[in-house]
């Protein structure tokens, strides 16, 4: 974990999740799991954030909200989709108001599987995201765009099925 030299701040948005993953995201912050030991702080302001944690899938009404939070975050930034609903819609995939995973709206860097995703898995995902963040930072410093390493929004990137 030698690449965790900075203190990355995360922002969390509940897409249309059942609360399960959200509560687990919050549980990560509490003494049992304590992500603050990696210097990770939960912020409410997108402009302070490096990592965007999205739980739940995207629907018609929150599409714009997710997009806006993403756009407000400064580069380099990493998106972590937490839970199977954020990955591809999960059990709610066939619901009439569900568009699909978060990657239908914004590019996703790390997919965390599970229903609900366990705190250990979320921490693992965020720490993995920090690696991606560093890569993007390096790319920016060498003159490239941060967007290069982020995959384009597609429905079928490699991910685990729950």
């Amino acid at each position: 974990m030698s690449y965790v030299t900075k203190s990355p701040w995360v922002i969390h948005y509940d897409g249309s999740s059942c609360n399960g993953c959200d509560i687990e995201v919050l549980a990560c912050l509490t003494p049992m799991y304590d992500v603050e030991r990696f210097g990770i702080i939960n912020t409410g302001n997108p402009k302070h954030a490096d990592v965007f944690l999205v739980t739940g899938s995207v629907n018609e009404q929150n599409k714009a909200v997710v997009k806006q939070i993403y756009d407000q975050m400064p580069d380099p930034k990493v998106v972590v989709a937490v839970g199977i609903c954020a990955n591809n819609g999960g059990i709610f995939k066939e619901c009439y108001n569900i568009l699909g995973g978060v990657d239908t709206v914004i590019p996703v860097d790390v997919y965390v599987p599970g229903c609900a995703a366990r705190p250990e898995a979320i921490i693992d995902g965020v720490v993995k995201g920090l690696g991606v963040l560093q890569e993007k930072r390096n790319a920016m410093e060498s003159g490239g765009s941060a967007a290069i390493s982020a995959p384009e929004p597609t429905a079928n990137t490699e991910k685990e099925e729950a």
Partner: protein
Amino acid sequence: MGKRTIIPFGPQHPVLPEPIHLDLVIEDETVVEAIPSIGFIHRGLEKLVEKKEYTEMVYVIERICGICSFGHGWGYCAAVEGAMDVKIPERAEYLRTIWHEMSRIHSHLLWLGLLADAFGFESLFMHCWRVRETVLDLLEKTTGGRVIFSVCKVGGVRKDIDNETMKEIVDTLNGLKKEIKELTDVFLEDRSVKNRLCGVGVLSKEEAIELGTVGPMARASGLRQDMRLEDSHGIYEQLDFEPVIAEEGDSYARCKVRIGEIFQSIELIEKAAFKIPDGPISVEVKGNVEGECVTRLEQPRGEAYYYAKGAGTKFLERMRVRTPTNQNIPALVKTLQGCDLADVPMLVLTIDPCISCTER
């Protein structure tokens, strides 16, 4: 008299773990009116009954909400069992009761933590959630899941709790009492906490009836209303259940009622563990749902309403879930009128909102 301004609050807001949007009409620092708008996490899962068989639908219904997931599974199964006239074994009813009360303990601890966070007491938030983890460990040990349990099925439950584990549950919960007491004393005795809670967001008994308020919110306004009193299977009656009630109707009373319920649930589990009969944990269910049934269940947040209607096929015709938060939003709108802008986040929390329940 100041100028009227509208402040949009949410859906993404630092104090809200879930998206709800309120248009707050304020005059100086006082809220005159609050107009809620929801729908940010509407999935439309009730309509999945047309695609999932009634036995599979339990998994969808459980995922209405990750906090009261067990209760939703129970309510749905009971509605289907009612429509099919299935009688489940008593041991299964007891097991459901035990898991449900454990969910209540973890839900109320979670709420206390979020409330502490809303009035700016972060270390208290951390402590409440630390204690909650112990309850989650028990749930994980007995069901296999921390959040979604999938132990309820139409016709009973999937897993049994053996005597040794039952004893462990009772011992662990009793051991937690001291720690929970230390925490809850802060909520009930600390002067600065009381300053934030006492007399804030008062809802009178008459208003509570008029607005159809349910759950701890109603009981904090002096209503003796709890679906556990109306237990058709009589389990709660055997456990000598009597709801926790407060009269003041303010945020402090809501806090007091929920704290009382944590200790009450521990006692209920202890009594249930003592009284649970031996026997099978499920019955075989054959055939399809024909007819309709309404069941109501006391969730941690209040009365939840389940309606199942089937026309003799393996798919239900209609499944309706009305969750407690849905019913408490009018009361929230009412208590927000006349409050200080700075109290809004805390008042939103005192109804213990569960938006993913509300919007399904």
